[in-house]
C-alpha cells in the first residue's frame, strides 16, 4: 500500500486545511481558545436557528448555550433548522476534508439537512490526507455504520456545467479550528 503523508509538520496543517477548504468555497477560522470558537460560531450563525450535536468540544466552547441553538436531534428538528453545529473525528489537511461519523452524539442528518454546517475541531485532529486517515483508522466500519468524508459544500454542475452550491447537502460550510481546547476558560464561564 502506498503511503503518502507526514509531508508537512503539524503546525502547517491547519493552514493547509484552510487554503484547501477555502478554495472550495468553505470558510475556515483558526482560533486559540474555546471562547474564541464560541464567538465565531455565534457570529456566523447571526441568530439563525441551529442544532448542535452533543460533542464535548462544543460544550467546552459554550455552543450549546448560544441563544438560537438547541440540541434536540429529531429529524423534524434537523429539517427545520437553518444551521447545524458538530465536531468531527478528524480533518484532512490536503483536501480540506472533515471526517464525521454517525454515532451516539451525532445523527447522520445533522450535518446533512440544514443548509449551513459548522464544525468545531481541535487542531490535533488534523491529519495530512486520506492515506493517513486510513492508516490511523484501519477499520472505518468499527465505530459507526456511517463514516462520511465531507469535502466542502454540496455542489453540482448538472445545469449547463455551471457550478451551484448547496444542492441537497449544506451549501455553506464553516470549520473552526481550535488550537488549544483545554487552556482557556470556556465561553460559558466567561459569561458569568
Amino acid at each position, binding site marked *: 500500500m502506498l503511503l503518502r503523508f507526514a509531508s508537512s509538520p503539524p503546525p502547517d496543517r491547519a493552514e493547509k486545511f484552510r487554503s484547501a477548504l477555502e478554495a472550495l468555497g468553505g470558510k475556515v477560522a483558526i482560533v486559540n481558545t474555546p471562547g474564541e470558537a464560541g464567538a465565531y460560531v455565534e457570529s456566523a450563525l447571526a441568530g439563525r436557528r441551529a442544532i448542535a450535536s452533543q460533542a464535548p468540544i462544543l460544550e467546552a466552547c459554550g455552543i450549546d448555550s448560544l441563544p438560537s441553538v438547541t440540541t434536540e436531534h429529531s*429529524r423534524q428538528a434537523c429539517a427545520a433548522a437553518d444551521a447545524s453545529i458538530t465536531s468531527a473525528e478528524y480533518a484532512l489537511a490536503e483536501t480540506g476534508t472533515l471526517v464525521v461519523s454517525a454515532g451516539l452524539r451525532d445523527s447522520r442528518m445533522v450535518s446533512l439537512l440544514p443548509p449551513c454546517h459548522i464544525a468545531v475541531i481541535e487542531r490535533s485532529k488534523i491529519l495530512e490526507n486520506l492515506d493517513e486517515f486510513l492508516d490511523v483508522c484501519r477499520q472505518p466500519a468499527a465505530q459507526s*455504520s456511517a463514516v462520511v468524508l465531507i469535502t466542502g459544500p454540496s455542489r453540482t454542475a448538472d445545469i449547463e456545467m455551471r457550478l451551484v452550491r448547496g444542492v441537497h*447537502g449544506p451549501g455553506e460550510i464553516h470549520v473552526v479550528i481550535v488550537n488549544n481546547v483545554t487552556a482557556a476558560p470556556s465561553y460559558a464561564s466567561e459569561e458569568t
Partner: protein
Amino acid sequence: MAEPYQHKIANALGDPKLQLAIYSATGRLADGRRRTVSTEAFPDYQELRQHAHEIKKHTLNHLDFYLQELERNVEARGGRVIWARDGQEARAFIRNLARERATNLIVKSKSMTTEEIHLNEHLAQDGIEAVETDLGEYILQLAGEKPFHIIAPALHKTREDIAHLFERRLHAAHETTPERLTAIARAALREKFLEAGIGITGANFLVADSGIVVLVENEGNARLSCSAPRIHVAVSGIEKVIPRAQDLGVFLNLLGRSATGQPLSVYTSFLSGPRREGELDGPEEFYLVLLDNGRTKVLADAEKRQSLYCIRCGACLNNCPVYRKIGGYSYPWVYSGPIGKILTPQFMGVHQDPWLPFASSLCGACAEVCPVKIEIPKILLALRAEITEAGIQKGGMLEKLAFRMWAWLMRHPRIYERVAPVAAAAASRLPRAGPLKAWLSQRDLPPLARRSFRQLWRERRK
C-alpha cells in the same frame, strides 16, 4: 438504407448546439483531470494506476473468495446480501420488498447498474414510484429521457429546457438561473427523501474485509437516500468488490481526479449496515443486491476480463474524440464511450451490434487516461477479430475476400508493383462508390504519384 445507429450518429453530428455542449463539457472535465494528475500535482499518479490495476486483477482472479468474505462481513453488521443472477431477480427482490413493507415511494441516487436492469420502468409498472434524486438524473426523469453521459447526465439540456420542464412538470414559477432551478429541485426532492419508504443507491466500491459500501458523490442525495428512509438497498455489480479498507486509498485518490478533477468528491460515505445500537438515526434495514447479469461470462475470458476493472469515472468518454462527436445517445446500451464499446459486445454478444467495435480510430487516448489501465484498444482489436471470425462484419464476404486478395498481393512484390498503380489510376476514374465515395464525402484525395518510391529508388541507383 441507413441503420438506426447511423441515423443517431448523423443526428448528433448535425446538431451544432449539441456538438458545442458535448465538446465544452467533456473538455472541461478532461482539463480538470489533466490538472490534478499532472506530475506536479500528483507525482504518484502512474504508480497508483498500476497499483489499482493490480488490485483489481487480483480481486477478479479470486472473486468468489472476496464475494464470500464480503457477504460474511455485511451480514455480521446486520445487513443482508441478495444474490441476483440477472435484472429480473434483482427487480423482483426490490418489488417484493416494497410490497411487503407497504411502500410505493422510493428515492434513488445515481446508479448505472439500476439503469442496466431498467429498474425504474419495471417498478413503475407495479405502481411504485422511484424518484431519481441526482439533479441531472431528476431532470431527465421528468423529461422522460435517458442519461447522456455517465458523470454529466443532462449535458445536452439548456437552462431554458430545464425551466420549461420544471414549469410543466412541477408547476414551478418561471426561473432560469441554475441557482434558482437547483433550489426548486432541492425543495421538491427534500419532500420525497423524507417521505420515501426505501432508498436505493448504487455502490462505488464494496469492501470485502469490512462489509463497507462506499458511495462517492457531490450533491448529498446519496447520503440522503441511504440515511433518510427506513430501508436502504444498495445495488451493485459483483465486480465492484475490493479486498480491504486499506485499498480505498488507492481508488479514492484516482476516482475524483479522473472523473472531474477533484482530489476528493464532496461526500465519500463508508456505510456498513443498518443503524447500530445507540445511533440516533439511519436505516433499520440494509440490503446489498449483488448483480451478475453477465459479469461472470465476461470474467471467463482471460484477455477481456479487465473490462470489469472499470470504476466508472468517465475519463475515457471525456477524452475520446469519437464520443466527443457522437455523444452518449449514439451508443446502443446504457454504457457509452470507449468502456461502452467493449462492455456492450461482451454482455450482449458481438452479433447484436457488430459495427460498434469498429467505431473507433484506435487512437488510444482512453487507455492513456484510464485510472485502472484497461487496455481498451487491445480489447477492441480482439472483438474485431471475433467479428470477422464469425463472418458478421459489415463489409460481408466481399470485404473478407478483398483482404485475402490484398494479403496475397502483399506477398508477391513484383505483381504488387505492377498492379498497384494500375488500380490507383483505375480507381480515380471509376464512379464514386463504396470507400472512395466515403472518402470523398469529407475530404479531397491526394494527387496520384507518377512513380512509386521503389521506381524512383531504382532510377537513382543507376
